[in-house]
């Protein structure tokens, strides 16, 4: 089991159109976001939060199109997207 450790560096996520934000303590690892992302941007990680739920992360090879679905579907208010100007 892996416990999450520290935030990512800001600059590592400048590539996609939408930045994925996760609130780690809230996530319950339900995989809804991963399942319903139309662009398969998200995937479940092997990282767990303190309650033992595994967390979603972004597959670096895909681009978030800011459809907002993950944000709308997440039952935990644990994920949201912010638009970034192309770096």
């Amino acid at each position, binding site marked *: 089991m*892996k*416990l*999450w*450790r*520290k*935030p*990512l560096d*800001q600059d*590592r*996520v400048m590539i*996609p159109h939408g*930045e*994925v*934000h*996760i*609130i*780690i*303590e*809230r996530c*319950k*690892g*339900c*995989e*809804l976001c991963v*399942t319903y992302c139309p662009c398969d941007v998200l995937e479940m*990680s*092997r*990282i767990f939060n303190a309650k033992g*739920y595994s*967390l*979603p*992360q*972004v*597959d*670096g090879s895909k681009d978030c199109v800011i459809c907002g*679905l993950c*944000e*709308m*579907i*997440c*039952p*935990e*208010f*644990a994920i*949201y997207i*912010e638009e970034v100007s192309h770096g």
Partner: protein
Amino acid sequence: MNEELSNVLISKEHPMDDYLREDRLPHIWCSGCGLGTILTSFVSALQKSGLDRDKVAVVSGIGCTGRAAGYLYLDGFHTTHGRAIPFATGLKLGNPELKVVVISGDGDLVAIGGNHFIHAARRNMDITVICVNNFNYGMTSGQMGPTTPTGARTSTSPYGNHEPPFSVPYLAAASGATYVARWTSLHIRRLEDSILEALNKKGFSVVEIISPCPTYYGKKNKMGSALQQMKYYHENSVIRHGSDPAESGIDLGGEIVVGCFINKDKPTFLDSQKRSV
């Protein structure tokens, strides 16, 4: 322990937090429960409604769904089991300026609270009711209730439920509701639109939302993971706007008719009261 989440930003706040009592999150709902998503849809609809948030009050009864009032950063009332509607009625009449929304469970609203439901519909009381139907009593560990499909197993129907369920839309319609819709928790966009319509409707509006209770109902009926249950409901639903509420019954394993069944105008309780004196 040396790994970290890839390509995401770690945050402490969510854009919707403004509408939430974020000091109470994470909420108590199980992983994969439909309730969280429904709350998101509600907040989203509320944001779009243009309603003054200081004039919106949410009333819940007791149940998993009944906790909704406690997570929204609005005036919130978590009353007793089954009594959200009469409390909401008083609240609205005590201060007609308010938009009063009831968010509660199927058991709360049509088991113990059934009488209040039909009477408020009859009066065309000026409130919006969001009824989350997970086909069982989640909070008390998954007993059967009046919405449990015939044949379904629950902790109090170990041999399969032998009672026929209500159709919430049909009951609402027969009682006089002016707006009646049904969606599943996965119809997020349409659900949001429907809640928005309901919020803006004058009179008694009802949105029923079919929602998975993976912990109890899903497990007892071998519906797989929360995700699978949610998907199942979504995929087995057919949209039939304007269809006869009498045809909206839900059979175990059968299709789930969704859509907006009724949307009509008639004088609300407050309107006709004003006119009568």
